[in-house]
């Protein structure tokens, strides 16, 4: 049974560019959450998708947007990249109030 899978594993972008990160949830899960983890810090909640809609959002600017597809997979889009967007982006899936299951993340470097 595959867990949460994310792609790509690493990505290098230039300031001002746009990026799309992808996530497939654990089998049987219907809710996808995205977190940003800066080096040496705990993950910070970006937003959560359920039934193809953004259900909850953290304190992140509108440059961060997302999407959830009917098969529950999800994308995180970041526009107008800043150097400070360099981080590990984690996707987590869940079903109801079950604990979040995390993927291994996408390491984004903005130069």
């Amino acid at each position, binding site marked *: 049974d595959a867990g949460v899978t994310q792609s790509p594993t690493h990505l290098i972008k230039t300031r001002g560019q746009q990026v799309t990160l992808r996530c497939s949830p654990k089998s049987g899960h219907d809710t996808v*959450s995205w977190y940003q983890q800066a080096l040496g810090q*705990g993950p910070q909640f970006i937003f959560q998708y359920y039934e193809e809609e953004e259900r909850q959002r953290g304190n992140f600017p509108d440059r961060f947007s997302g999407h959830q597809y009917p098969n529950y997979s999800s994308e995180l889009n970041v526009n107008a990249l800043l150097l400070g967007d360099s981080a590990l982006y*984690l996707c987590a899936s869940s079903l109801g109030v079950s604990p*979040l299951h995390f993927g291994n993340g996408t390491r984004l470097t903005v130069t």
Partner: protein
Amino acid sequence: GESVGLHLPTLSVQEGDNSIINCAYSNSASDYFIWYKQESGKGPQFIIDIRSNMDKRQGQRVTVLLNKTVKHLSLQIAATQPGDSAVYFCAENKFQAGTALIFGKGTTLSVSS
């Protein structure tokens, strides 16, 4: 603002010892707490969780204690093994506000054999 924090950034123990990792939280309205383990290059891995109507919960080699009076959470690992070396995060949630987790900064556990 309200956040979850950890008392010590690092903890070093010998193999076979018991480890205790502490966490203080400031939001008295939080009703769900969870511990994650994160190894280098990997995402956080669920260890154990506890709801605010409980004081203690045990898993395999791990115990979580919740003291709501002083807003303190701890993770106890019995017979610590080298494979337990990782960064440990506590996180909190208030279900009425949704299911988003608020994470602390983490404690790095180093186990020497």
